[in-house]
């Protein structure tokens, strides 16, 4: 299982901030996870793939689509609005 986090408006689109995701393989490509999410919900899928959405794996922003393992945490972050 991996944990998915959807921040900001992505949480509204995903139906919640946090969810568990059952990995099809012990090492699953991040791209595969995005494809699954996209198949289930095209609107969410498009938002996740938008260039303004940053993806972090275990707290580190990733710029390439690597592999996800059991207990990993993937965060989908729209543009920040703090301060």
């Amino acid at each position, binding site marked *: 299982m991996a944990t998915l986090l959807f921040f900001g408006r992505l949480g509204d689109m995903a139906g919640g*901030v946090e969810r568990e995701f059952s990995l099809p393989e012990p090492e699953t490509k991040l791209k595969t996870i995005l494809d699954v999410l996209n198949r289930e919900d095209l609107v969410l899928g498009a938002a996740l793939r938008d260039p303004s959405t940053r993806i972090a794996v275990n707290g*580190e922003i990733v710029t390439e689509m690597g592999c996800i393992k059991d207990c990993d*945490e993937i965060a989908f972050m729209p543009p920040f609005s703090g301060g």
Partner: protein
Amino acid sequence: MTEKLLNTLVSDNTALADPFGRTISYLRLSVTDRCDLRCAYCMPEKMQFLPRPEILSLEELETVAKAFIKLGVNKIRITGGEPLTRRNIMSLFEGLSNQLGNGSLGELTLTTNATLLSRYAQTLADFGVRRVNVSLDSLDGTTFARISRRAILPVVLSGLQAAKKAGLKVKLNTVALKGENQKEIPSIISWAHDQGFDITLIEVMPLGDVHAERSDQYIPLSDIRDQLEERWTLDPLSYRTGGPSRYVRVRETGGKLGFITPLTNNFCDGCNRVRVTCTGKLFMCLGQNDHADLKTALRSSPDADGLAQCIREAISRKPKGHNFDIDQRIAPAVARHMSVTGG
């Protein structure tokens, strides 16, 4: 510099929200550890009822409830053990009904085994309770007696009728128990829907749980669902992306059927739930191991602010391993990401 020094203005009216911005709106408040039934899967193996001073008094329970309401909790569920066994428990409902009346509390509900509903259903309805969850695992007297170790199914059924008569909306919670009620489940569902009750099936924890009896009785709900789909059409409700739907409507009966598995608390539905035990321990449902002791705050500080502050600190606690409350030199650490607490 510590956080406490800076939190000099703690507004009573600031709602609780966790770091993910989810506001705490739902409190489960246990009022007793006692129950008039002895269902093996529920009672701990070495059941020791707590001595009286360990348990919060009814006044203290009301103070706790009001503190949470002030912090934004909108729904309170009274639980137990069996809450209706607590002496004078109606006085707590009366006290909380005032909060319903003035609009600060949106909903007051109850989970019960219905053994005492004949006595209390109307009073509960008068105090503003609209919905109750009733735990019921069998409609067969012998099976009921075997599971709960008391032969009082007729009392439970009267209780359910009293609830109906008082206008309370009933939802049944039925635990699927292999070798006990597995075959009965379709007829329990039919009966429930016929009575106008929604029903939710609950899966017992599989092997690996501490209680051996539970693991022997484990049936995956997916198996049960397969059986049901042979006879009925189950239309998913509240479709959620990326995971199993939790509720269905049975087309042939028109009633709602829910499936709850302990491992599939997948979705944080925007509502943070917290749980307070009858001894005043506060648990965040999403961080099961961490708890706060409200009893000490209640009994040591005379004013409500002490309790509110204790609740705030518990809700807002930082994830383990991160302590940035420093003003000295720190080495730039490779920070670990937070471990997300399970559903």
